[in-house]
């Protein structure tokens, strides 16, 4: 049977990652590096884009600077750290903020201010920037300092759906998702527990 999913616009925004435009698609790491810089985090940032270390994913940016997006990416991972999740999953999760910033100048400023504040707090703690703070514990300490603020809550709140509503994430966490098209779990292990 054909399912007709009913999506809210919020849900739609958090769907699987949009493939990179042709300008970056299929570039090798070397070629990406020639256009930008590798950050200590393994990301590649260049004019108008940010990419994964081997070019497996890339995000072209109109509103946010690549450095800002790299910071948001690190922030997202620090808020919900899953060591087995690639950057692509976090990038897909926060892409909605870039999209919104393209048409919402006030929101664009809100994000820029938030990132600037994160970096300022990192500097105060003795690091060059938020992303330059090498230990997760140091970055998390900075986040605890802003966890009641709108900037943190906006990013965190968006990740609840943005990160965890991705089928790729479900697979990594062992959740099998939609079931009816497979005949349910009646013959797919609904009672297969063997260790009790």
């Amino acid at each position: 049977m054909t399912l007709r999913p009913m999506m809210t616009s919020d849900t739609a925004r958090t769907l699987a990652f949009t493939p990179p435009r042709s300008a970056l698609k299929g570039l090798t790491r070397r070629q990406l590096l020639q256009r930008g810089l590798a950050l200590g985090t393994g990301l590649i940032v260049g004019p108008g884009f940010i990419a994964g270390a081997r070019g497996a994913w890339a995000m072209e940016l109109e509103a946010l600077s690549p450095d800002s997006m790299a910071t948001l990416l690190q922030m997202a991972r620090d808020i919900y750290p899953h060591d087995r999740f690639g950057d692509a999953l976090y990038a897909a999760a926060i892409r909605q903020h870039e999209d919104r910033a393209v048409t919402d100048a006030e929101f664009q400023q809100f994000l820029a201010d938030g990132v600037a504040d994160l970096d300022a707090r990192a500097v105060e703690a003795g690091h060059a920037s938020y992303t330059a703070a090498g230990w997760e514990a140091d970055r998390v300490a900075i986040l605890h300092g802003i966890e009641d603020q709108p900037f943190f809550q906006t990013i965190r709140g968006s990740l609840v759906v943005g990160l965890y509503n991705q089928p790729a994430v479900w697979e990594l966490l062992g959740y099998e998702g939609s079931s009816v098209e497979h005949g349910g779990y009646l013959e797919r292990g609904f009672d297969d527990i063997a260790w009790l």
Partner: protein
Amino acid sequence: MSAPYELSDDSVVVIIGTGAGGGTLANALAQQGVDVVALEAGARHLPADYVNDEWASFGQLAWTDMRTTSGSWRVAKDFPNLPAWIVKAVGGSTTHWAGASLRIQAHEFFALSEYGKVEGANLLDWPISLTDLDPYYDVAEKRMGVTRTNGIPGLPGNNNFKVMKAGADKLGYTECHTGRMAINSEPRDGRGSCRQLGFCFQGCKMGAKWSTAYTEIPQGEATGRLEVRENAHVLMIEHDGAGKVSGVVYQDADGNRQVQKARVVCVAGNSIESPRILLNSASSLFPDGLANSSGQVGRNYMRHMTGSVYAAFEEPVHMYRGTTMAGIISDEARHDPSRGFVGGYEMETVSVGVPFAAAFLNPGGWGRPFTAAMDNYAHLAGMWLVGEDMPQESNRITLSDEVDHTGMPVANVHFDDHPNDVAMRDHAYAQGTALYESVGATQIYPTPPYPSTHNMGTNRMSEQPADGVVNGFGQSHDIDNLFVSDGSQFTTGAAENPTLTIVALALRQADYIVGQMSGKAI
């Protein structure tokens, strides 16, 4: 006379809402020759429309019209505009309920007499007893196809249940089984049987779970005496100069206001919307709202003591495979004040998918404590604790200053836990923890109450008009031809899931209304 009915037809019974109460009542009246117009705020979604996707389904079915919250309950902080997770669709919350069908226990109808006065609680005995309701429980269980009744086999136990059962055995609980569920364990009543889809909360795509949307409502429509108007959001109820209700004002699918005349009006919009409608119907004759001479409309809002316990194990569980509420332990549902609280609670398995686990296991939580739990997802078992919370006058639905798309003031839901609720929840968390640890849990995650799926008490039954809103038949003390037909009638919450009782009350109310109408009393 037959459907469809004219707006000016004042011979019809108008029912607001088509859920467990409204849907059951609509069919029961139509079957007995009464002309019924049922106004449903939502659209008609049926099994072919449901989706096995938590957020997409939420967008399709959930009531997300503006509501506000206040009080010390955590829901007000984490979900300030979502006090309740209920359904806006034909079928109401029977669309997304888990199917648990339990009778209220005999002593729970006499909460005040049995428990005694509890400081700060507005306990009251129901004006009816289990004896009054038993014949209707019998009919309800048969109509709904409740397992373990009427020769219907219990459902098989999934992984989540097996963990619960193993722990129940270790703790010495004796009342643990796969539940009395309104879910077909074999084909019945023209509907298929359960294939353990695991998306009960998203509407049963097998139609195995009973919902008025594809049982009572189409059966009623087939008589030619039931007209359901979808996307008809009721704003208020009108009355005549003599103080009898005379019609219902609603906003239709095009956004236009309509008035359906009525001989009798039955309010079944669930326990937030029903008192909201009555309060929004205030007039010069009834300045405090309809049916509100006692001042109790909106008050005594109960959502059950709830909380969840999830537990992680070394080996996978895959709790999401199969029915969401796959089993129950009833040992703690007794009244036993030696435990430190009055009333009791049930322990019922529950499961949510990754998307909802992220949203509800620890709202607002973040960092490694949060993600460690999510990383354990496939190794989690879970149970939902549901027990009797204390009615408090201050827990109430009132009208907010905000208005919604209908232009009417929205409902504010105020709630604070009573100390008895806290004591019961702490006990339940401890028992759930002990159960899972007894079978090897390595980590325990007590989870706070979700936006309320059980909502009761806001138009409660009472013997004396001063103590409540309706009598033992759900009939307004003040206005003879005005009824309440949903869970807002509950005098107290009891420990049991409310749906079976709502259905039984609706069946009984239908008989009463038919009698009253034939005798021209209304």
